[in-house]
């Protein structure tokens, strides 16, 4: 291994988020991926599970029990597994980024309410920074532990953030975020509902109430008030992507320049958030299809000044900004790399 590169390991690297992590980290000039574990695929070449990585690496999957110490360890396992062994992982690496839901919530009671069981390592919760650099850039800089982000939570937070920062949202107003999501959100374990004849072409209401990412959104918005945010998720014909539309009421009488000013102020220092509110383009609003494979999140709005009714929009790649992209961006901040390193891919079109 190159002496001037940080050694990085990925636990649970055979999933979709793990594959996206591998793709991003293999192109990162400051790190070298030395280990990628998968209990199901021990001994197989990484490209045999992630075919787009052929000739990108000669790594083979290893077992978790053979993990050696590294500088940075990414945990990309199913929810619940990281918290069960977090002390063991911390003994192997000074910095950890956990992509699961295990360390996103600061309050163990909120975790139990959202996930239906008591947290196994509640003492570790305050040590983790929520890994959304757009909100916690300063806290992530130099941090040892970062959580992942929920893809639907991220889209919802980013959709609401500029209006929130601009003092346009009233905490007394319930907020409903309608989310259209792609099939890769369900992970790479097949199920009856993901079987092609059942999944192809759907516009399937998946979870319209009680989505567990609501707790993340409320936590992120909490410094500005106790917002009652509800998510309504519908599965649509798309592999990657989340499209969020938050239905809110803003003060009546604002004009377009007022909203542009709020959005510019909120996102001026965020290299991966783009304002998409175009009068003349075919693509006038954020669209997830344009963001596949990128770490960008596009935000925008539609507003009726006569009534104040507004729909605040965000789109992203659930495996990119909604998972692996934010994780690598967090690592960049934790390790002192430029925040954008290895994340500048701008997508493909059409």
């Amino acid at each position, binding site marked *: 291994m190159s002496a001037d590169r940080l050694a990085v390991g990925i636990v649970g690297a055979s999933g979709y988020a793990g594959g996206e992590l591998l793709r991003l980290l293999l192109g990162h000039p400051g790190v070298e991926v030395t280990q990628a574990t998968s209990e199901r695929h021990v001994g197989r070449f990484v490209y045999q599970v992630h075919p787009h990585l052929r000739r990108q690496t000669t790594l083979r999957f290893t077992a978790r029990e053979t993990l050696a110490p590294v500088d940075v360890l990414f945990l990309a396992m199913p929810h619940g597994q990281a918290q069960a062994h977090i002390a063991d992982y911390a003994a192997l690496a000074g910095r950890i980024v956990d992509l699961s839901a295990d360390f996103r919530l600061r309050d163990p009671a909120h975790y139990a309410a959202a996930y239906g069981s008591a947290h196994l390592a509640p003492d570790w919760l305050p040590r983790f920074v929520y890994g959304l650099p757009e909100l916690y850039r300063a806290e992530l800089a130099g941090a040892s532990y970062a959580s992942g982000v929920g893809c639907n939570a991220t889209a919802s937070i980013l959709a609401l953030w500029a209006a929130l920062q601009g003092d346009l949202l009233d905490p007394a107003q319930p907020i409903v975020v309608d989310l259209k999501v792609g099939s890769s959100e369900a992970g790479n374990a097949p199920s009856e509902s993901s079987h092609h004849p059942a999944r192809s072409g759907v516009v399937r209401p998946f979870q319209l109430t009680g989505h567990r990412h609501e707790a993340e959104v409320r936590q992120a918005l909490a410094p500005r008030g106790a917002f009652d945010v509800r998510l309504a998720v519908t599965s649509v014909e798309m592999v990657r992507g989340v499209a969020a539309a938050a239905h809110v009421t803003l003060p009546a009488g604002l004009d377009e*320049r007022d909203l*542009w000013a709020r959005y510019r102020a909120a996102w001026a220092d965020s290299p991966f958030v783009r304002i998409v509110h175009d009068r*003349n383009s075919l693509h006038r609003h954020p669209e997830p299809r344009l963001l596949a494979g990128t770490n960008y999140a596009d935000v925008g709005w539609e507003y009726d000044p006569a009534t104040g009714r507004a729909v605040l929009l965000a789109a992203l790649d659930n495996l990119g900004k909604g998972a692996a992209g934010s994780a690598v961006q967090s690592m960049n901040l934790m390790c002192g790399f430029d925040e954008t390193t290895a994340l500048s891919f701008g997508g493909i079109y059409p």
Partner: protein
Amino acid sequence: MQAECVECGAVIEVPEDVMQGEILPCADCGVELEVIALEPLALDLAPLEMEDWGE
């Protein structure tokens, strides 16, 4: 020279040899702005052929 987009407030770079009637696009919000006066420089929204997006 610089001017301000009348739609979104973005700064528009205007060439020194701009002519009255010239169309300048806004890089932020995408509108087309027409130079309606030179001294002083003034921009307004260019007439737009609308597409029926509700169709």
